[in-house]
């Protein structure tokens, strides 16, 4: 009975979130990651985020393959690379896709539980301010891949259909 009541509350909350997010749709395209060394503790995921109307903000992410997932960016100043966490999330605005790509914004996987192997893929859950959770499947490519491989891009249309 108690479980039923709790389920009811959770469902109601989910329904509210659903309604709240129903105006705009986030789409994630061309996600990819890079193969890591056997003992690697860190990895990164890259992708393009779009929204069909209005604006939203990527606030964070989580994945079963890593202990923590953070939003990072790279600043190159006079040949010096400085990686830093992104303050306040990554904005996504209609009409201007936000690219997370090598050398710039990326989703940093810290404390990898197992090496990321080329040819495999892993689940990643993006958390948006308005859209809520958006699941993505991230294919693992070569260790220095610069862009998603052709034929893998369609994997990423992580539908957050309302």
């Amino acid at each position: 009975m108690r479980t039923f009541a709790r389920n009811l509350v959770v469902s109601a909350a989910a329904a509210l979130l659903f309604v709240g997010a129903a105006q705009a749709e986030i789409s994630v395209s061309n996600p990819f990651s890079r193969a890591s060394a056997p003992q690697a503790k860190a990895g990164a995921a890259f992708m393009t985020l779009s929204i069909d109307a209005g604006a939203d903000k990527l606030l964070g992410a989580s994945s079963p393959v890593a202990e923590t997932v953070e939003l990072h960016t790279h600043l190159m100043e006079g040949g010096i690379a400085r990686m830093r966490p992104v303050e306040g999330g990554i904005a996504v605005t209609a009409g201007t896709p936000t690219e997370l790509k090598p050398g710039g914004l990326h989703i940093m996987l810290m404390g990898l539980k197992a090496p990321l192997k080329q040819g495999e893929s892993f689940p990643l859950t993006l958390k948006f301010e308005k859209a809520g959770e958006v699941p993505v499947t991230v294919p693992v490519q070569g260790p220095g891949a610069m862009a998603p491989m052709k034929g893998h891009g369609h994997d990423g249309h992580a539908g957050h259909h309302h």
Partner: protein
Amino acid sequence: MRRRTFWTGLAVLATAVLLGSIALIADRLSPQRTEQGHGRAAIGGPFTLTDHLGQPVTQDILKGKLSLVYFGYSFCPDICPTDLQLIAQALDQLTPEELADTQALFVSIDPERDTVAQLAGYVGLFHPAIRGLTGTPEQIDAATKSYRAYYKKISAEEAGTTDYLMDHSAFIYLMNRDGDFVRVFGHGVNPGEMVEWIRRVRAG
């Protein structure tokens, strides 16, 4: 009249001496002269490190081969893999003969995390001709000074992350068979440009 010529002459002479002295002092002070004083640009020099197979190495491993030298860290998820991939692509473009004559060195600036075993797994991902080098914090500090490479540990608290990060210069140095500096390539360089310079040095 004669007197006037004398004074004019003296003034000209004094001005010449003064200008000459300024030029001489300026030349002494210019950084370019300091570098020329060593006979070559002051990038590269002595180091004592351990390679990814656990072998102790010094600057002597540069002798007899062309080397691409890069300072980075294996925890780096983005900049270092990109540059190592570009180095690997350049190595792949070389003929077997050229490749036998060329190596790449990935020097860690993160001794805390980059153990020999960690580096072995990491450089092996990219190309068999890439050697990983690590060492004690003092050895790594000395090596970065030789190459004028910059690095700085940013603590987790300072960065606001769950683990510490490393700031580092992302340059690829090309060294000749004598271990002398030839050229530096910036982050994201076209592999073809490195190949062109490797060939130029080999032909040289």
